[in-house]
């Protein structure tokens, strides 16, 4: 991709950037998942906002599912750029598992949400118009398992995302190794001098 060449040319120091498409997918997912999680946690505790937030939550969930499927295709087709040399062997292993867990959770959570509503026999309409078909039989026991799983997966997402962001922040701030810059869009260059 031409962007990759441009990026490589623009960044003189080792850490190469993800493709522009990958970066766009990443930040789109970040915004959507933060919104979906916060709205999800909020709506079940907010009587007056529940009805409106539920509709928004399900629409965002459907969008996440779509974006994550596209991302997985993109991830398989494009190998991400190498990590900075600061990532050790053991840390590298942890990072690989963290990434896999994140992809798995991002894929599973909207599917579980969709299946859970299906199991309650309730139709799903997203963005006010698009009707999603049921993907689980009407069965309250199936609903119960999926409903509890939806909460557990939400907390797991919070933990895994917190670990993901903390790791990158630690690298970027403590080591200044350009870990975060692989994923950012640069508007005007402000290279930090390394000591």
């Amino acid at each position, binding site marked *: 991709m031409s962007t990759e060449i441009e990026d490589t040319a623009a960044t003189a120091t080792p850490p190469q950037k993800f493709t522009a498409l990958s970066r766009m997918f990443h930040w789109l997912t970040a915004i959507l998942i933060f919104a979906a999680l*916060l709205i999800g946690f909020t709506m079940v*505790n907010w009587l007056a906002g*529940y*009805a409106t937030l539920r509709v928004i939550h399900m629409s965002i969930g459907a969008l996440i599912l779509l974006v994550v499927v596209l991302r997985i295709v993109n991830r398989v087709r494009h190998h991400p750029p190498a990590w900075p040399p600061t990532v050790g062997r053991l840390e590298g292993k942890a990072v690989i598992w963290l990434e896999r867990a994140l992809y798995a959770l991002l894929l599973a959570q909207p599917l579980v949400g969709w299946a859970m509503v299906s199991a309650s*026999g309730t*139709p799903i309409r997203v963005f006010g118009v698009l009707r999603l078909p049921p993907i689980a039989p009407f069965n309250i026991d199936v609903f119960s398992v999926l409903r509890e799983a939806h909460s557990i997966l939400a907390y797991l997402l919070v933990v895994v995302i917190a670990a993901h962001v*903390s790791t990158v922040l630690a690298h970027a*701030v403590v*080591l200044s190794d350009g870990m975060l810059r692989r994923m950012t869009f640069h508007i005007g260059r402000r290279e930090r001098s390394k000591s």
Partner: protein
Amino acid sequence: MTASPKPRPTWGGVPLTRRRVLLGMAAVGGFLAVDLGAVAYAGGWIGTAHRLTPDNFIRAFAWVNGKQSGFRKNHAKGVAVAGYFESNGNGREVSSAVVFRSGRTPVVGRFSLAGGNAHATDMAGTARGLGLAFGFSGGSQWRTAMLNLPVFPDNSAQGFYDRLLASKASPDTGKPDPQAMAAFLAAHPETAKAMKIIGQSPPSPGFADSTFRSLNTFYFISESGSRTPVRWSLVPVTPPAPRPSSGPNALFDALVGQIRSGPLQWKLMLTVGAPSDPLDDATRPWPADRRAIDAGTLTLTSIETERAGNARDINFDPLVLPPGIERSDDPLLSPRSAVYAASYRVRARESTNSPTVNVDEVAP
């Protein structure tokens, strides 16, 4: 300097400075504080002391009724029914919903008595509920949970909650504490007024001859996009002669006998509101002269004990609406949806118990 040469700790081959590590801890700590703080607030772990949540209702129902494992937290006692709605097409004037096109839509439903005690004795004065799911389990479903009351006693979630707490039977008398109820009514004049209206229309002998009402207002959207405020009701068609019955399940036993001897029918009336009518206050009736559209006939043909896979497992969430019907600004609607969902989740994970109304045990 005499300090012993201590090797500086490294991470990934990079020597760490104190300044860098502190900065990193601040960045990570700051992120985690905001991130986990937001989750904790949204999830209700912090800051819920002064807001009413669905969980408060679930706990209040348990406090008033005791543990009712596997049952709905309100309207716990009930029986499943099924039949169909025969639309005459008149409803299309106000709504594009598929259910109002001429023809038949299958319906599953549930008759119930208000209150969270699944083993309560049938009383004529207890509010009667009818939950219906038109077109279950299709994509254009319309669910409704109605009562045989002319108006609803409360116009806010807080009002309902306060009334629920005040209604707890005192262990000495078996009746609500009169002082608590008086204090509640003094604080909620809207309920006092609604109770007066409810008292003026005494209940019919049984379920079969009860008129059930939506109570909340909804907007009906026509094919041309016009929005009409509507409250609907089910008006009994030539109710069968009241069937003498007694015992703790007198009302349900009579219903079972009536459906066995022939289908029960109601007319679905869509009452059209005026902009000046109370559209967001379920405690206030609309003027009696409002036009009502006869949209068709509900026929209930079968009745069965609540069991896995029938109406027992349906959450009659009043906001499961088809295209062509939308919610109004009535502040009861979203809380009803939220609390029904909480009740559904809780009872789904509880172990189930035999329902009190057992159709097979009713003498023919």
